[in-house]
């Protein structure tokens, strides 16, 4: 597509798309990282310790912190999913923007598989560029957040290991790429059909 749509528009879409990829990966990494840490933490030990503690002001604080942490994780997951959705929409903006354009490409003899291939390459290229940027940015954000009293409290309770960071990045990268590719494929195929129908005067319904 980028060889056909005009350059200004393509650049704007690419920049927006990259930006959303980066934001998304940051949230994705943070939420998965946090979830993995919480899931793999020795929660049994932690609760055992809790039981031993009498109902004091400290224990109340611990319970409250736990609740806040759970909420943060849920919120982050919500953001993760919404930002994933936004990315996919932005990535496909060039296709979605005008159905008749897509229909016209087919009418003019543009091969559907070639169009799909270019879209896949777009998605993968974005991932490759966005991943290192998001790693750096999320590390900075993560470190800043860890200064927060509440988060540092949790972090001290969890063994922070490098492999977990790597695993979370790999997981989110694979998931995002798969989602984006599958979505692009189906979206484009549907758009092509709709586009052609639209051009033939049969509407897009």
């Amino acid at each position, binding site marked *: 597509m980028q060889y056909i749509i005009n350059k200004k*528009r393509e650049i704007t879409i690419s920049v927006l798309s990259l930006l959303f990829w980066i934001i998304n990966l940051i949230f994705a990494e943070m939420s998965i990282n946090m979830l993995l840490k919480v899931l793999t933490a020795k929660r049994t030990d932690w609760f055992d310790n809790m039981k031993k503690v009498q109902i004091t002001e400290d224990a109340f604080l611990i319970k409250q912190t736990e609740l806040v942490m759970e909420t943060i994780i849920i919120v982050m997951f919500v953001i993760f999913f919404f930002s994933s959705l936004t990315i996919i929409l932005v990535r496909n903006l060039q296709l979605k923007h005008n159905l008749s354009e897509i229909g016209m*490409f*087919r*009418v*003019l*003899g543009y*091969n559907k598989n070639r169009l799909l291939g270019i879209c896949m390459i777009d998605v993968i290229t974005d991932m490759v560029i966005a991943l290192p940027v998001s790693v750096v940015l999320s590390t900075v954000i993560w470190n800043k957040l860890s200064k927060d009293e509440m988060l540092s409290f949790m972090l001290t309770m969890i063994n922070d290991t490098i492999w977990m960071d790597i695993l979370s990045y790999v997981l989110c990268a694979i998931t995002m790429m798969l989602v984006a590719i599958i979505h692009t494929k189906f979206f484009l195929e549907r758009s092509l059909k709709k586009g052609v129908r639209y*051009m*033939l005067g049969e509407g897009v319904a």
Partner: protein
Amino acid sequence: MIVLKLTDIGKNYKNTGDVLKGVNLELESGKMYGIMGPSGSGKSTLLNIIGTLEKASYGTIEILGNKLEGYGEKELCDLRAKNIGYIFQNFYLNPYLDAVENVMVPMKINHEIEPKERRKKAECLLKKFGLEERMKHLKSQMSGGEQQRVAIARALANDPDIILADEPTGNLDEDNEIIIFKTLKELAESGKVVVVVSHNEIVKEYADEVIEIIKGRIKA
């Protein structure tokens, strides 16, 4: 020379049943054909089948001596890119490209014309249709008649043998209608097959042959 041959073509849909039945046609180069008929008679479906955008439920199509049976998506795309030019009622110009770039799109898809030559050829075509002042204009900066002339130039970009026009003057005023029909007639006279689907009676004045379709069948 027979460019297009349709033998016993039929098309049926699950919902609407038979749209076309037993259509036999032979279209020769250098002629302009008008396809007329009431709404829902199957004329647009016939045009789409000729243009390989839709597949016939039965029957055979031959374009330039090649039977389309067994053609895959890739072969059909190549055929469309090289041999068929489309003109639509709503022009369908890309709103983000200027007139020259719009005409260049099919050349980019076809790849047969060298990149350096594409712009020159596009400018040449636009000049031919009196659009030298509109080359850098976007769709939104042109009148309906001008847009349709750009669309005709785009249809001719790869010098196809077949030009298909679906209600090409449906959105145009009377003056522009005449310009467009005259242009299509000239294209036919230059050796191409021009097929025009239209409700407009004026098509009878320009077409060498008028094909009337009623309820999916060609009127004898």
